[in-house]
């Protein structure tokens, strides 16, 4: 099914956003997030962007203080996911302007709206920034 989860975690290991596309109990999530964060945050810039963990492959990318971690299964193309992360960041950037960790933190709902336009059921649904952002813009106008 492709993407299993998307996490945004800062370098202190605090989760800023978590979106799962398969059901895990809270305990499972806590354990999984803990393990993954420990593994990925310890890595250096010179190491590759892929980490194997349990049945997942974690594709991750760091932007300043924030790590974007995407858990995928064997059915995904790692580099495509890596660039999908970048697309997500660019989309956020287009909306927030110079997006930073605080934007995502304080606009959790908007981050979720964007993600919801981009990924559904673990599959990529839209890659055009204009299309992704149009519902949010509509709403901003309305309010």
């Amino acid at each position, binding site marked *: *099914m*492709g993407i299993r989860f998307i996490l945004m975690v800062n370098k202190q290991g605090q*989760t800023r*956003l*978590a*979106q*799962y596309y398969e*059901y895990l109990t*809270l305990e499972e*999530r*806590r354990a999984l*997030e803990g393990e993954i964060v420990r593994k990925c945050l310890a*890595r*250096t810039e*010179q*190491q*590759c*962007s*892929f*980490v*194997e963990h*349990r*049945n997942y492959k974690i594709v991750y990318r760091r932007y300043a203080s924030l790590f974007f971690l995407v858990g995928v299964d*064997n*059915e995904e*193309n*790692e*580099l*495509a996911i*890596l*660039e*999908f992360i*970048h*697309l997500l960041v660019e989309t956020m950037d287009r909306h927030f302007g110079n997006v930073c960790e*605080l*934007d995502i*933190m*304080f*606009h*959790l*709902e*908007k981050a*979720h*709206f964007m993600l*919801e336009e981009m990924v*559904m*059921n673990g*599959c*990529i*649904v*839209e*890659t*055009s920034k*204009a*299309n992704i952002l149009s*519902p949010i813009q*509509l*709403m901003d106008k*309305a*309010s």
Partner: protein
Amino acid sequence: MALSGMRGLSVFISDIRNCQNKELERLRVDKELGNIRTRFKNEKASTPYEKKKYVWKILYIYMLGYDVDFGHMEAVSLISAPKYPEKQVGYIVTSCLLNENHDFLRLAINTVRNDIIGRNETFQCLALTLVGNIGGREFAESLAPDVQKLLISSSCRPLVRKKAALCLLRLYRKNPDVVNVDGWSDRMAQLLDERDFGILTSSMSLLVALLSNNHEAYWSCLPKCVKVLERLARNQDVPQEYTYYGIPSPWLQVKTMRALQYFPTIEDPNTRRSLFEVLQRILMGTDVVKNVNKNNASHAVLFEALALVMHLDAEKEMMSQCVALLGKFIAVREPNIRYLGLENMTRMLMVTDVQDIIKRHQAQIITSLKDPDISIRRRALDLLYGMCDVSNAKDIVEEILQYLSSADFAMREELSLKAAILAEKFAPDLSWYVDVILQLIDKAGDFVSDDIWFRVVQFVTNNEDLQTYAAVKVREYVDKPAIHETMVKLSAYILGEYSHLLARRPGCSPKEIFNIIHEKLPTVSTSTIPILLSTYAKILMHTQPPDPELQNQIWAVFGKYESCIDAEIQQRAVEYHALSRKGAALMDIFAEMPKFPERQSALIRKAEDSEADTAEQSAIKLRAAQQQTSNALVVTDQHPANGTPPVGQLSLVKVPSVSNVDQNTTEQGVTQANGALTIVDPQPPSTPSADLLGDLLGPLAIEGHPSAAVQPEPNLASGLEGGSNAAADALAIAPVEEQSNIVQPIGDIAERFHALCLKDSGVLYEDPYIQIGIKAEWRAQHGRLVLFLGNKNIAPLVSVQALILPPSHLKMELSLVPGTIPPRAQVQCPLEVINLRPSRDVAVLDFSYKFGTHVVNPKLRLPAVLNKFLQPIQVSPEEFFPQWRSLSGPPLKLQEVVRGVRPMPLVEMANLFNGFRLTVCPGLDPNPNNMVASTTFYSENTRAMLCLVRIETDPADRTQLRMTVASGDPALTSELKEFIKEQLVSIPVPSRAPAPVPPPAQPVSPPTATSDPGAILAGLLAERLIFIPPCFTDGMRAGDPKINFLKK
């Protein structure tokens, strides 16, 4: 910094952010939860805006990892809000907090449906997304047609249709029947003609899911996929918004090529040519550029193209291009590309002919084994493991060994296991194998499992020319000051058996050997001491003429452990002590271990299990599957008992690979660990246990392994019994008998069946070769059984067939049963059952397999019996009596006097009823000799239907009783009545005492429609219960002529 529209939420988030530690954060969260809880309780006080705010807070708290056990209802209720902002929050938060099985989700199903079929397209999008993310089976059945309509509707805008595509994908996964293959394949092909990239991207994911189940039905999509790819590759008609760093949607390109990999070949020459042109262009035209994003995106496409070329096994010209590219990639500095290069090269091993080319890169790959990045090291190790064969095994294993000492913890176990397996599989000679394992234990003892040293013992025992070598080697290792306990075990074992071969060498006299081993004893754990004691006993036996001093020393050790608290040690000490005083008899008893029978390597098995665990790159497995056989090393002589076997030089024998099984079996490790399949020996001697551990560490280990039962050697047990051979003979005879007959089931099949009628998991059938276990879950009229087919042997079971012969009232679907069950493997076969209508007929599993020359074909009744579709229900008198009265007389209410009942106290009968999920309702019938029970029966025809049962017994004669059964369905009433009757007259008893079976279906109770006593009873009941309850039964008994008939 701009605050979001919800101030309270922002304040809360920044409060959390300012918390200095986890404890303060928890306090703040608890306070907030308390606050929200109060607000929600006071329903009226919260406006939609407030609700929205609180629901976001809950999501935020949940995301932080705190359990939130309320608020779900509020989130769900927002879905029905009329305004978009609230509705949106309701949808998004619901899909984050709930899962498909949550009850609240059902509450929303109507709203969701209305939104989907409604006119508001933003609402449609929200609803489709929710269903796409968390919709379950119920949604699948009720929404699939609407979703399909939206997806193909030309009047619908792309933003709705793209979501409909992925929503349908979810529904399809929940219930594949919602997509009608015949009708849908054309529509799917049409979808691929779309211009819109959103629709194309999501439709391509849908297509991949459909193809993975059944590519045959979607051949028509193949040329369309190629067209899409051409369009992208030529950059024709690609909107700017979908171009990423100059590359036309890399994601759609990748997905399209992924879809194409589900077709086995491309037959149409034109399509094939077009595709290869595109692929060629990608392979040739991808350059390394400075911009990271562009580079990644183009390489994402390139790697996918490589995978597709490998899959299509194209003209060899393109394949060599692929290998060349991969060779380049594994040498680059960029870690991502190197990682993927290694990964794809491992995949490429599946393609024949290229292995020699890949071997040219061995040095480069070994460099990556030392990379600072563990992800890359893992890939390199996997690739080395996969490309290893006889020609390069020595180099590769030595590299792994060298790396082992510096490797990090996380990888040591994997490294040592892989080294051990490669050494075993591809050993050019056995002494090298022994060297490797000894080095392994020396360098990474903690990571060398017992299986590994057991295997060494097995080889050494079976190969006489290896024995001296191994003894010399371990003798060298025990000289080291601190050695790993596993090394102590192995060397003690080998020196015990074979140190006499070294007796003339310096430092190898029995006494010296004893001393050096005995030095280790204080450092080892209790599990090792028994092995040391055996070694001492063996040394003693080999010391001829006896050395009184050594004898006394060893006897003193035995004496010391005779009172050891550990039973195993104590028993050995006592036995060895007694035996070693027997003098000459000792020689026979402590003789050398006989050769081990051929068996599959426990290691290789373990490796396969661990591969399943880690879901590692499946290339190795796949490759093995292609080759069908693996070059596992086995010792050829199979009959150690027949005189002197030829000196077992090691030979490479093709044994059937365990790897060529699908997902089912790879799960076996897990289930076996859980103990779902309990493999029980006794086994006939032709199929000795593969459980080396048991063999080596069993209490009687020293006198022989299991197959010793057929050896002419005296048995240790008999020695202890004072020379009586009775015990040994009995041991020896039993299995031989078993062998001479055709395959006999173990245990009573009928009893097993009856037991399974009452419980949901257990063994359905077992014989010396196979065990069939069953595990069932029942929900209303649905049942899901899993058959566990466990091969108990070290040889595969072939020609396995399982046919279900369902009775007409059951719809049963058995998943594919593999034709071969590999040695020691367990296969799980799910079986879906739907109960259409009430019936007592029983489904039969017609099972057959071949083992050697035996064809075994048991026909087994499956416990999908009537009572499995019952759900216990407790009814109150207020519910019972009106119901009982309204079901007046046949055919809805039937009564019968049953004779030949197995006498039992009423309590026992009540237990029996409860066991069949008929809830006994105590107190409903005041007569202590009577019993009333209720239950709900489920089937497609009847749906949920209440059944009521009344049993009247006669304390004077427990072999007969009167039974009245009532339900809203005539067939159900009659079947249930007969079913209960069967249970009462022929209860399976363990002793199998012949139960008095009455002639079945004797018209004991003539139809009495005119004066149905039940109806009379009901009338009486209703009245009397209200007015004078105690008379309940008295009145009934007196007024009922049937009772007299019964008493006669």
